[in-house]
């Protein structure tokens, strides 16, 4: 089980967002910057939350922003955005959000392995707080067991 690679361009430590849309947009920008998606994917991730609610806040302090596969997904990818000031997504239990993980998958089958690897990292309940406090991309990668480029040892 391996995570998609997490290059510096896919990590934004200490972002400022005034609301949940801004936080998701920062994740969309990181996915675009890393080459995983086109810019429109950010709007689709926002659309999922507008349609279904804040269920993407899957754990206290953590939002897993994502949308369905589509032509704006160039390849599967992951990004991590940490927020200086946490923002509310409107979740009854897990607000406010300090960390946004953005996920893009090009097909539904592909993502199962990467999601299992994500679940491994986050099954440690201290990881979300430690991610929120991370100050460098290297720290973020170390906490998630991710590599900067595909195929590198973690």
């Amino acid at each position, binding site marked *: 089980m391996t995570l998609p690679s997490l290059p510096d361009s896919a990590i934004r430590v200490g972002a400022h967002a005034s609301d949940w849309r801004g936080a998701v947009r920062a994740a969309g920008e990181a996915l675009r910057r890393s080459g995983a998606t086109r810019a429109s994917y950010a709007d689709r991730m926002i659309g999922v939350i507008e349609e*279904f*609610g804040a*269920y993407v806040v899957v754990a206290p302090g953590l939002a*897993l922003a994502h949308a369905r596969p589509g032509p704006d997904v160039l390849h599967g990818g992951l990004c991590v955005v940490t927020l200086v000031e946490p923002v509310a997504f409107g979740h009854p239990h897990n607000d406010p959000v300090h960390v946004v993980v953005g*996920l893009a998958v090009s097909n539904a089958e592909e*993502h*199962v392995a990467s999601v299992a690897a994500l*679940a491994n990292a986050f*099954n440690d309940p201290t990881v979300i707080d430690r991610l929120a406090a991370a100050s460098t991309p290297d720290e973020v990668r170390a906490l998630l067991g991710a590599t900067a480029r595909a195929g590198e040892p973690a």
Partner: protein
Amino acid sequence: MRIVAVCGAGIGTSAILKVNAERALDRLGLSADVSASDLATVAVAAADAQVILTSTELAAAVRAALGRSFAEIIEVHNYFDVDEIGEKLEASIG
């Protein structure tokens, strides 16, 4: 025993719930077939399911999508908390 994990888009969150539900079942020594689904297809996916796992945010929509069903809907707060998922599954099926 069939369990269906449901999220809005059928990508990401339901897969996490499925993976962690399987881990919780393992720890409890229970066996069940766990699948992931989205809201649009949950009525078909959950036709013969006993338990549906989803978030509080989606529970009402799942209930509406299912219509008449005998499946129990379990609301999970923390998708990464295998203990929480295990306790709720055990209370339901253990």
